[in-house]
Structure formats: structure tokens, C-alpha cells
């Protein structure tokens, strides 16, 4: 007898871009996948000990570049991303917004031309920044953010968002709160791996990225790819929320170090 409350997600790349409460809305059910997920659920209980729950080493440098108003290079393990923020500055009349700042994000991959995946990344980062930046203080201006991938060894979206947040801090743009992104992957045993590298991401069933804010640790953005159950989603959410506190502390330590030279 299938319990009423248990529903199954089957989703491709799926992004929320708003403050959502703890219980996510369920979009749809695909009946043909229930038997597969039921097996996954059984194995998940048996293989709890295969979880890896630590983030990789975080490091950052701020203010290396001379031309942008603020910039930051953040590395999570071997994944490294540089962000630069210009603003508030002049904006083209066609892009001008009357009541708030226009936020522009450009993502540049390490090699090759930017394609659709890069556009999706830009859109996710831009929507997260719109929540966080106080655009109402700078109407008819633009805040341009350039994100350059230095090296991608897994958890790229969370590294991009963390480095964007640090660059915004460095530039002095007014923000409501900070944002910290944490990624996790669900492998086929049902175990949850925090901050997965490329191999772990490729061999996983689902990869989820959560972006939290530091007032009430609410969720700003969710980006999820793959096949996972509601239970697994909730577990990932709470693990990532705990891990985000470590990321916020890292932000504070980095800024304090930079300012101790001033």
C-alpha cells in the first residue's frame, strides 16, 4: 500500500528562485518511476553510513584586480571561480529600470564559447543576486557582475554564488543579507555527499544546490537536477543549512582579515 503522503519527484534541471518555506511544493508525480524510487528508499535506510558530510577546503582572496569596484576569487577544494563587480554605474537606456538597479551577470567558462548551460548559470546567479542586493537604492543604474571559471572540479554553481557574494561585499554594494551556497549529491545507495567533486557528481543520481541567507537561514534559491524523493530533499536541505553556517563564518573571517590591514 503506497502511503498517501509520500510523493516522488522526477525532474530535470529545476530551479526555484524565491524564498520558499521548509516544505517544497510538489509539482507532479510520474507513476512509472515509483518502483525504482521505492528500491532506492530501502537502500537509503541501510546505507546511511556511506554519507560524506564535510565541505571541501574554502579559501579566498579579495581585491586582487585594480579596475573592478570589487572582486573575489573563491576556491572550494579544487574548484576555483573569480567574480568581479562593477557598480552602481551607467546603464543603457533600453535596459534601464525606473525603480531599481539593473543587475547583469556574465559567466565565462574556462574554454570554449558560452552556451545554454552557461546562460542558465547566469540566470540562476542573477536571480539570487536580485533577492540579495538592495536595488531600490540605485534606480536607473546598473550593477554588472562578471564570473570567470578558473577551474571546475564539481559544485560549480555553489562556488560561483559564494564568490559573487564575496565580490559584492568587497565592492560595498548595499545588500539585505549575505548568501551562501552549498551543494550536495545523492549517490545510488541513497547516501548524501556534501560538496561533491566531478567524479562524485557524475556517478550520482541527483545533485542539489541550496542558497541560504544569514538572517534566518531561509532558502533563497534551489537548483536541483536528477531523481530524488521528498525525504531525501528534506535531508539535503537540513544538511546544507547546517553547512551554510560554516560558509557564513568563512565570509566573516575573510573580510575581517582583509580589514585588519586597513
Amino acid at each position: 500500500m503506497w502511503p498517501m503522503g509520500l510523493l516522488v519527484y522526477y525532474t530535470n534541471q529545476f530551479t526555484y528562485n524565491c524564498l520558499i518555506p521548509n516544505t517544497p511544493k510538489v509539482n507532479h508525480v510520474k507513476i512509472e518511476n515509483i518502483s525504482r524510487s521505492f528500491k532506492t528508499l530501502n537502500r537509503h535506510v541501510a546505507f546511511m553510513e556511506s554519507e560524506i558530510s564535510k565541505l571541501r577546503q574554502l579559501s579566498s582572496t579579495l581585491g586582487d584586480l585594480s579596475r573592478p569596484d570589487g572582486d573575489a576569487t573563491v576556491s572550494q577544494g579544487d574548484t576555483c571561480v573569480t567574480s568581479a563587480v562593477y557598480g552602481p554605474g551607467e546603464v543603457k537606456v533600453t535596459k534601464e529600470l525606473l525603480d531599481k538597479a539593473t543587475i547583469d551577470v556574465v559567466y565565462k567558462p574556462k574554454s570554449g564559447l558560452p552556451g545554454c548551460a552557461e546562460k542558465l548559470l547566469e540566470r540562476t546567479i542573477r536571480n539570487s543576486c536580485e533577492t540579495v542586493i538592495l536595488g531600490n537604492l540605485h534606480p536607473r543604474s546598473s550593477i554588472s557582475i562578471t564570473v570567470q571559471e578558473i577551474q571546475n572540479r564539481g559544485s560549480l554553481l555553489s562556488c560561483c554564488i559564494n564568490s559573487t557574494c564575496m565580490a559584492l561585499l568587497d565592492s560595498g554594494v548595499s545588500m539585505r543579507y549575505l548568501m551562501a551556497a552549498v551543494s550536495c549529491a545523492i549517490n545510488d545507495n541513497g547516501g548524501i555527499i556534501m560538496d561533491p567533486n566531478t567524479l562524485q557528481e557524475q556517478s550520482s543520481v541527483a545533485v542539489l544546490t541550496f542558497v541560504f541567507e544569514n538572517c534566518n537561514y531561509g532558502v533563497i534559491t534551489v537548483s536541483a537536477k536528477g531523481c530524488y524523493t521528498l525525504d531525501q530533499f528534506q535531508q539535503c536541505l537540513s544538511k546544507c543549512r547546517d553547512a551554510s553556517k560554516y560558509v557564513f563564518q568563512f565570509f566573516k573571517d575573510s573580510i575581517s582579515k582583509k580589514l585588519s590591514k586597513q
Partner: protein
Amino acid sequence: MVDSVGKVVLPGENLTDLLGSDSTFESSAWSRNTTGDRFSDRVKTWFLKFKEPNIYWVDSFQKRYIPQRGDSVIGIITTKAGDVFRVDVGASELATLPYLAFESATKRNRPDVKVGDIVYCKFLVANKDMEPELVCIDGSGKSAGLGVIGRDGGMLLQVPINLVQKVLSPECVLFKTLGKNLKYEVAVGMNGRIWIKCHTVMETIAVANAISVSQHMTNQDIQKMCSQMADSLVGF
């Protein structure tokens, strides 16, 4: 309460904890209050500073200038448009400077200002909703040092905003120490632009370097650096 002064505060941090629950908050340009809990969102990062008897403010460091009414800035004339000049002050849009806002300027007696000139002017109107406006006279119609500068040479330097505030504060000894050894003329704009002029190009460059380098220095270090610089200019 006193411990938290000088500490780093970041956006989203709850200031009520730091400052004690009996203090009431005034809304300033850089903070936002939500009703109910007297919970204040810190919107800019950085040091929490304190001034007697009851003012706390957050000091931040940035490179980009945001216009404030009453600030004296250095602007560059980019175009003439009808009755106004359009001036680049390093903000998000060009500011306007009317022809008549110069000392002893009338409709017949136009001021001698060309495109590309550097002007030292003051903000008359500067808020987020309107185009910024500048003037080169004070309330009584006198120029008081404002107007076109740099016709006969000099160098324009761009520095971060916090350096300008440091250099202009009464505790900073940079300008006084430089003045003991060198003759120089300087105009400091709150938009991070500094115009410097000395007798020779080498001295101008030396003063420009001294100003940029003093960003991370204490008063003692500044004095040492200035005396070293004066020695090297003479030839030691």
C-alpha cells in the same frame, strides 16, 4: 556594547544583540529597520564605529562614488548641452553644471569653460531619483575655491573613497608633513579624485605616490615615508 565597536559587521546581522536592547534606532542612509523587534539590517559591511554620546555608524570601504548633497568633488566636463555642462564625477550618471553657477557669470558674460576642463564643484542636488546637479558658487555667490582648476598643468589621481576621507581627517598628518619639505597645490574631491600640482613633474609624481601609498599606513609610517621621499628627491 563597547566591545562590539571596531568589529566587523556584515549585511543581515542583527544589531540589537550587539548594541543592547534599550537603544532605539534612527534610520540612517545605510540601515534599514523592520518594525516590531527593533531589528536592524546592516546593509553595508564593515566596521562599527562609535561617537559620543549615542551615535553608532558603519564605516565602509569602497571605490565607487555615490553622490551626496554638499560634497565637493572634482569633475571633468564632457559635453555642453543647451544651458548646462555635463560633468563626469565617477557616479552612475553624468551630473549637470549650469553656465550661471560660476562666480560673476551672467547670460551675456559666459564663463570661460571648455570641454575637457577639470572643475572643482559642489553637489546642489544629489539623490537616487533625480539627476545630480553641481554648482561652482556658494550660497552668497562667491566661488570660494570652486571653479575650473588645472589649466596650467598638474595631475589627476583616482583613489578609493576611504583614502580621501582618511587624508582629509584632522588626525592625518600626510598633507602637513608633505608641506614641510615640498611646495605643492592639491585639490581633493570626495569622489576619490585628487588633483596635484608641483613645480616639477618628478615632485608631482612623488606626491601622487605618497598619497596612494598612505592608504594602509599609520601616522608614524607616513612621517617616515615623507622624510624618505624628501631625501630621495634631493638626491640622497
